[in-house]
């Protein structure tokens, strides 16, 4: 434990929606209640909505932020029922004490009566809490989207148009990542023994694999399999007192751009530029100080764009990070040494797989015979690891260092 956060943050205003109670005559959706409460609380304190730097709300903090056009530095959607707000206040206290931000809002919009009476109409459960003002069911679902690949492909098309990249450029990411998987016995695509299509692949293999959502082919897409993982964190005071070595969280940052793809400002850029800037600043380091990277590769396009956002390549040249084997085994700048979501393991939320491999690389256990064979362990003492969530929506970046 470092500094005591006691009284390092205060509640400076509190307010409610314009009308609360049984809103039979004038029912309101959850988002309308959120907006009224936030307008009133900011007015009470004499600040602008755009002054809000952080947002917490059970389940929907990101959706409320998108609705308000905010790009918060800190997002907490912790949903553990009615006590979520107290818990979020503690999370916010810790974050303010740590200097992550200065002004945040905890917000609530819950038409409990209107949901019971059906006053809000149908709409079914959907994006944004299931209320019928959810934009997803009204404005995206009618056009048949069928999961992440059908969304992310739009970003790749735009990248190819805007920056002149090609499907072959992105395919190289899959090829190099597969090379790493051949050094990881636990990778789904380690070899022909682990999967009929396992083992090394070529750019042509990727380009000739089955079309999923043009311009994404099958081998541009991550696996969907099973995974469980966990990491332990401990205070600096005791971190050296275990039989396992510490890997330090030198920097951290989080950011968002949108919740729905419709609201993505630039289809070739994610908020990882912001989360990475925050993480680098906290660490007092920059991309030039990183010796490897672990980059969320739900699709080749995710990894390619994120490489740019992390400052590892100039804008528009993300896929080039993987060119000429540079990011592969024995390369100058190793990336996704576990074989990635593309070829190691991806269960839906891949961020834990990223953290586990990041730890192993910096702890020096990446080729212990079980999780890696000769050639997988790098010499890196520092790395940047970035997770991407939603539809290229949310990002979390860590800068990790070894002793």
């Amino acid at each position, binding site marked *: 434990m470092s500094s005591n956060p006691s009284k390092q943050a205060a509640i400076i205003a509190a307010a409610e929606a314009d009308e609360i109670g049984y809103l039979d005559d004038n029912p309101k959706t959850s988002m309308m209640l959120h907006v009224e409460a936030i307008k009133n609380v900011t007015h009470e304190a004499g600040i602008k909505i755009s002054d809000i730097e952080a947002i917490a709300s059970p389940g929907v903090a990101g959706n409320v932020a998108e609705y308000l056009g905010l790009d918060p530095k800190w997002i907490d959607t912790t949903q553990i029922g009615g006590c979520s707000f107290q818990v979020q206040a503690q999370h916010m206290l810790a974050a303010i004490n740590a200097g992550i931000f200065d002004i945040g809002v905890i917000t609530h919009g819950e038409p409990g009566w209107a949901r019971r009476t059906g006053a809000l109409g149908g*709409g079914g459960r959907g994006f944004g809490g299931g209320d*019928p003002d*959810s934009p997803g069911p009204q*404005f995206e*679902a009618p*056009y048949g989207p069928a999961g992440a690949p059908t969304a992310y492909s739009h970003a790749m*098309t735009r990248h190819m148009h805007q920056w002149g990249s090609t499907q072959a450029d992105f395919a190289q990411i899959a090829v190099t990542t597969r090379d790493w998987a051949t050094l990881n016995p636990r990778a789904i695509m380690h070899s022909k023994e682990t999967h009929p299509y396992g083992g090394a692949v070529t750019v042509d293999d990727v380009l000739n694999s089955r079309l999923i959502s043009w311009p994404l082919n099958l081998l541009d897409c991550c696996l969907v399999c099973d995974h469980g993982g966990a990491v332990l964190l401990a205070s600096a005071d005791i971190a050296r007192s275990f039989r396992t070595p510490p890997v330090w969280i030198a920097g951290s940052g989080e950011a968002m751009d949108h919740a*729905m793809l419709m609201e993505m400002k630039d289809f070739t850029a994610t908020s990882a530029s912001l989360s990475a800037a925050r993480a680098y600043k906290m660490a007092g380091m920059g991309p030039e100080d990183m010796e490897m990277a672990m980059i969320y590769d739900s699709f080749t396009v995710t990894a390619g764009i994120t490489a740019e956002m992390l400052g590892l390549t100039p804008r528009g040249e993300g896929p080039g990070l993987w060119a000429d084997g540079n990011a592969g085994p024995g390369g100058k700048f190793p990336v996704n040494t576990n074989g990635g979501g593309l070829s190691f393991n991806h269960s839906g939320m891949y961020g834990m797989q990223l953290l586990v491999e990041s730890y192993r690389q910096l702890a020096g256990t990446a080729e212990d015979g079980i999780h890696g064979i000769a050639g997988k362990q790098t010499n890196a003492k520092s790395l940047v690891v970035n997770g991407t969530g939603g539809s290229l929506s949310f990002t979390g970046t860590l800068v990790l260092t070894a002793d």
Partner: protein
Amino acid sequence: MADYNKMIPTPDKFTSKPYWDGAKEGKLMLPRCTTCNKVHFYPRVICPFCHSSDIEWFEASGEGYIHTFAVQTRGSGGWQDDAPFVTAYIDLKEGDRLFTVLRGVDPDKPQEIQIGAKCQIEWDEASDEISVPYWRVVE
């Protein structure tokens, strides 16, 4: 309309009512902030650009441009049998962007689809109450 076999959206009768009312008439109605004059989509009760609550609705031109697109080989909500089909994000002439299924393009020739191509809205009567917009490339 009886043969409309895709998912029919349930309108939000609060925030988006003018949009769906307009759709029934074959008109693209968009929300615009009278404080900063910017159009936003999806509809909101507050302007996402300046946080004013002074929102007006107006009839838009129904003209837009392809921002980006993809060819889908699988689909949900009744679209599976239509695959391959082309989805796209359309930059509205009046501002902001929306999602659609694109018409007037060949899903087998994505290389021939031009980002920036001009599109025009058209409406399918999905039910007595709901018309769903599609966009057709017109150049």
